[in-house]
Every structure is written in structure tokens, then in C-alpha cells.
């Protein structure tokens, strides 16, 4: 039951009362003029949806919302539909200039602040999944934190690491990078094994990889890593070395 005398309800009305007119005002500014003989209005956001209406040259339209690279517009004759990015670029802004939509480019990726991504691959023949957050310091250098989990047939391991990443040719289409990192790995044997004991070791890691800008704020990433586990003890002389490859994607903002 909604109590219309409650403070919460008043707050809600206040928010709606202030924000809604603001939202209406915002969309009023988004007016464009058709410059080509006509532009197509699809029934849905995708080229597979049929063209049900067109807007003719000289008609004005309002841009209401965007889903991926499609824009939902309303024409002056109250017709509505979806226009793709390329066609919307053929309209004029209120000043009569050709509309320039800012397409995110390689440059925006180079100048990104944060990158959040996920990867999957193999760590010593065990499937591994990881999530990472990257903070760019300069165009060529960034720091990164990664959490990963690998599940093998006899044990599963979780690792956390911090990395310094150098990307010397940030402007390349397929841009290589080098990583150097430290972290900790906890190996947990399967419960069905006899006498399972968890093992905890620190490690150092070097790696190299490649990043490819796809579109908008999306990048693909592939990398291979070499880990050295500082696991030498009194009984065992050598440190363990393991290898990892992974593929993934990230969004940057």
C-alpha cells in the first residue's frame, strides 16, 4: 500500500517532478534535420528488421535513445523507428552542419582511464578464468590487478596478482604488451584425494600479449604468461615454473 503522506513518497514525487521535466528538456535539444532524399526507419535496432517508414528531406527528427549503434528517433509526423549510425550521420544539426557522431577510436583507447576485462584459458592444462582491472598511467604504461581461478583434475588454485604493463606501440592496430607481476597462489587439492593439504606460494610472473581495439569501447586481448612459484623448501631445491595462456575481452571507459 502506498502511503501518499509519507516522506519517501514525497521524495519520489520530488525526484520525478524535477527529473522528468529535465529529461523532456534534454530530448528537446536532440533535434536533427534530414538532408538526404530520405532515411530509413527500421522496426527494431538491427539491419534485419524491416524498414516500415522513411523520413524525407527537410523533416526534423528527435533522437530519443540509443542501443549499440542504432538510434530510436521520432519524426515530426509522429512516426517512430530505428536509424543506424551511418544513416544518422547523414542528417544536419540545428546549425545546418553535417552531424558528426563521435566514434570511439584507437585514440580513445590509448587515452582510456580504466579497463575492465575477463579472460579464459589454461594454466598448466587446467582451465582458468580471470577478471582484471587496469588503470592507465600513461599511453604506454598501466597497472593492473587480476583475480583468477584454475580448476584442474587433482586441484584447484586461486591466484591474485598485481602487474605493471608496458605497451610500447599503443597506436598499432594489434598492439603488443609486456607484463611483469607478483602475486600469491593458493592450491587446494580435491576433497576426494587422501590427506589434502592446501599450499600457499608467492610467485613472480612475466608475460607478453596483444590487444586489439574492436569498436566503441571494446577490446580483445590474448596473452601468455610464465610463472615462477617460490616454492623451494628444505626438501625441494627447485622453484616450480608454470605456464598460462588466455584469451578475453574488456571494456574501457
Amino acid at each position, binding site marked *: 500500500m502506498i502511503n501518499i503522506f509519507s516522506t519517501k513518497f514525497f521524495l519520489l514525487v520530488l525526484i520525478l517532478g524535477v527529473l522528468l521535466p529535465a529529461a523532456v528538456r534534454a530530448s528537446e535539444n536532440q533535434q536533427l534535420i534530414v538532408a538526404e532524399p530520405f532515411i530509413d526507419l527500421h522496426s527494431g535496432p538491427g539491419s534485419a528488421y524491416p524498414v516500415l517508414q522513411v523520413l524525407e528531406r527537410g523533416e526534423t527528427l528527435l533522437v530519443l535513445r*540509443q542501443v549499440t549503434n542504432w538510434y530510436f528517433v521520432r519524426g515530426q509526423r509522429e512516426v517512430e523507428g530505428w536509424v543506424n549510425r551511418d544513416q544518422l550521420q547523414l542528417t544536419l544539426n540545428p546549425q545546418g552542419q553535417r552531424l558528426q557522431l563521435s566514434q570511439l577510436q584507437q585514440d580513445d583507447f590509448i587515452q582510456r582511464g580504466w579497463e575492465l576485462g575477463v579472460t*579464459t584459458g589454461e594454466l598448466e592444462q587446467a582451465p582458468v578464468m580471470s577478471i582484471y582491472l587496469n588503470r592507465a598511467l600513461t599511453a604506454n604504461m598501466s597497472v593492473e590487478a587480476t583475480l583468477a581461478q584454475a580448476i584442474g583434475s587433482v586441484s584447484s588454485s586461486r591466484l591474485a596478482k598485481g602487474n605493471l604493463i608496458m605497451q610500447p606501440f599503443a597506436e598499432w592496430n594489434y598492439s603488443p604488451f609486456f607484463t611483469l607481476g607478483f602475486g600469491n597462489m593458493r592450491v587446494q587439492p580435491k576433497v576426494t584425494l587422501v590427506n589434502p593439504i592446501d599450499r600457499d606460494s608467492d610467485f613472480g610472473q612475466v608475460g607478453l600479449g596483444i590487444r586489439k581495439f574492436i569498436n566503441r569501447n*571494446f577490446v580483445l586481448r590474448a596473452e601468455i604468461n610464465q610463472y615462477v612459484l617460490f616454492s623451494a623448501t628444505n626438501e625441494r631445491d627447485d622453484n616450480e615454473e608454470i605456464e598460462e595462456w588466455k584469451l578475453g575481452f574488456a571494456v574501457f571507459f
Partner: protein
Amino acid sequence: METGLRRFLLILLICGQGTVWAQQGPVAAPEGGLVEPVVERSEFDESLIDSDDFELIAVFGYISIEDFGVNSLTGLSLAYHVNPHVFVRATGLRSEGDRTSFETLTGGAPLLTAQEREFEYYRLDLGYNLLPGEAFLDAATTFNTALYVSAGMGTTSFAGDDRSTISYGIGYRLILWEYSALYSEFRNNVFDMDVFGENKSTSNLEFTLGISLIF
């Protein structure tokens, strides 16, 4: 105190509306008599376009955990639409394994503890809208829909161990209105189980319904 606060909020609301109307209203003529023409220079600001590429989906359904019965499943999914065809999703799901037929028949000691029966599943998947379409409720009501396929991998925590899981499925998405969509999905989740001594690959079928918030 409460009434005072309400009164204050009400005044704020009225003032807020007033400023909005005042900005939109015509400019009054100055006292000198000359009326300056009001030229509205509106700019097209791309950043004001409401971009709706993310979706938060509440998921409810059933999962058949091999040997452990069919159990209810709840979860949360975050989807990002890369382009009209491709989307990526991160999903967390939770269920609970039932007793196996063996446990019920023999009435002996349970195979798993209550904690080990808890089923937790995280996965990442990549989806492809195979058949985008439209559905018609009546002559005036049309919904955009898509039949999609998806595949991914994840981690299942069940019976005391983490299990690497491969997942694939097919689903149907119906966009109710601009801020919400309905989902119906059928998947298979494949992981290895060694609870019964030998290591075997299990297929765990999942059927879910979902409702989303698009933002």
C-alpha cells in the same frame, strides 16, 4: 518535524517545476519597449542521448543436477550488448542438490553434508542473436524479440569442490518495453563429478525465466 520536512520538499518541488517552466516560457518585453527577438540556438549534444547497452537480469528456474535431482535455481546476470547481434554476459546462480536415489533407497548415511549440497555457479558467456524478430500480441501491440544462442564457461562449486564448467544453450528474448525484457533460456552445463569414485562428465540441464532492467 515530519510535516515540516514534507512542506519543505513540497516547496522545493514547486520551485523546481517553476524554474523549468520559467526557462521554457517566453521572455517578457523589457520596459524600454523594444522587444529583442529570442533566437533559440539549440546544439545537438550526443552525450545527452540515453544509451541502453547494459541489462541486469533476475533469473529463476530449475536445474537438473545429475544424480542429485531437479532443483530450483535463482540468479543474477549482467549483460552488455556489443552490437545488434553480439552480447556478453556474466551470471551468478545458486541452487541446492537434493538426495540421490541411492541415499533415499538405502536410508544410510548421506553422501554429502548440507554445506556440500549448496550449488553455486558463476559463468561468462558470449551470445549471438541468431534470429531477431517481432512478436504480435494484437494489431496494435508489437514486441521486438530475438532467438539467441550462447556458449561460455564457468565455475561450479558443488560437493565440496570447484568444477570447471562448459555451458551452452538457446534462448528467447522479448523486449517488453524500452526498459525491460523477458528471457526464457534452455542450457546444458557440463562438468566432471567424482563423488561416486570414478570421474565422470555430467550434463546438468537448466531451464530459466528472466526479467531484465535495461539501462
